[in-house]
């Protein structure tokens, strides 16, 4: 993984990185990737990926409201709120 890739992944993950942090992260992540590539030794042709240990399908339920009127609870921990809404920086000019 080169420094450019680390920076790109950090952007995808929305984590700001200082340029000075790039080399050590590059070294660590490259080391981990190299190590996990030993998985290539395992023959997995015709093996289905396993996403969950006991479930082959997701359970479904009736589409009904189970709890409502929780606006205050939902907003209780908001860093910034107004008129029963979360407030974020301005997005459109």
């Amino acid at each position, binding site marked *: 993984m080169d420094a450019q890739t680390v920076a790109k992944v950090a952007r995808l993950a929305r984590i700001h990185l200082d340029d000075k942090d790039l080399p050590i992260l590059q070294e660590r992540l490259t080391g981990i990737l190299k190590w996990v590539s030993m998985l290539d030794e395992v023959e997995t042709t015709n093996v289905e990926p396993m996403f969950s240990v*006991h479930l082959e399908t997701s359970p479904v339920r009736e589409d009904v409201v189970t709890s409502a009127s929780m606006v205050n609870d939902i907003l209780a921990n908001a860093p910034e709120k107004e008129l029963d809404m979360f407030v974020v920086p301005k997005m459109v000019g």
Partner: protein
Amino acid sequence: MTDFTTLSLTDLKNGYEKKDFTCREVVTSYLARMEATKALNAYVLETPDIALAAADRSDARIQKQEALSLDGIPVAVKDLFCTKDVPTTACSKMLEGYKPKYESTVTQKLWDAGAVMLGKTNMDEFAMGSTNMTSAFGPVINPVTLPGDARRFVPGGSSGGSAAAVAARAALMATGSDTGGSIRQPAAFCGIVGMKPTYGLCSRYGMVAFASSLDQAGPLTRTVADAALMLQITAGHDPKDATSLNRPVPDFVGELSAPLKGLRVGIPHEYQVEGLGADIVALWEKGRAWLVEQGATCVEVSLPHTKYALPAYYVLAPAEASSNLARYDGVRYGLRVEGATLDEMYENTRAEGFGDEVTRRVLMGTYVLSAGFYDAYYRKAQRVRRVISDEFRGVFENVDVILAPTTPTPSFAFGEEPKDPISMYMNDVLTVPANIAGLPAISVPAGLSKEGLPLGLQIIGPAFGDSVVLRAGLAVERAANFVFPQGE
């Protein structure tokens, strides 16, 4: 004042029933013990008011002869379980000051059974770590000390605070979560019992998510019987968790007394990993003999893909974590660091809120899920997961449980911990396979290293075999007759 913290759960229940002492007296004793062991940093939040109020409610029920199964039992809660209106941080700066408006299912079940919350325990940030050193609130110190040795040791992680609290008698039992060994490894390091149940047995509702297909709540206790009781109360189907098992909960407590005779125990030679201490190998041998003496038969089994479990884990867990931790964006709860644009606000918040290990894993996870690498890493790891899981299933056609060490080494002193991530990850090499396959596994304190630090033996069972795991664990406990070494 009498020190009630040395009494076992059974002694407490008998004492309450006979009115020898009250829940308030016992809880007061535990609060004093928490104060006396504060330097361990096992708790990130103490809740004495909540504890005493709960103790009084328990006393009232006991007076009326309406005692519940955990009335007056002091419990510590890993800070990853949401507790209504009580700060819950997963020991991350990201959640500092966060007060959930709801209660996790596991803790709700404990309170419904009369248990008393003493406080919230320290942990590795978002449960990512094996030493408790990634916590935003500082490391936890293992209560175990060595005679004539000033060094202090790590408690393991991620449930390091829970393990240290139970080992130091600053709680009778504690909740933990185990994604790759986070209950069993600290239990082994601190000389207590820790169990990861079958995946889905306890609801994940209200647990701060790390890797959802691997995360499992479980007990940290002084004895196997206590673990069985705690599991009995916290297990069960929960419609609020789609992956929660929808099947009847076995009678773990009742089945504990079934005879061991005829139990088939597998010894997997692949768990003889590089760096496994000679003292641990000797203890493993002893464990085998203990089980045979009690009527079990032992056979060699083979799990050739064991060594791929850890690298598969370090693709799957970061991938799931990167997705789960996307919720920390500074908008709805937790930390916010301002920025000129929405994206800048996200980036600044997450840079400030996440510690180094969490950042590394989120980046790793983002990478393996990104276009062009998804099949090579993520899909590949999911396929290997099935290979490992099928391999276990095959072995469990011939044996009832597997016996192995819990960790390749005992705890290590501060300053002597592995410095690079991969060596650190090796701590979990013997615990991760059970998570990959969703299997129940328990760590039981079974002996001491040549230096005198606690060592654990691990029993792994087939899916839904939690009862047999507990029963074999009890047999190890009985034979080991483990005495907690010197310590605080």
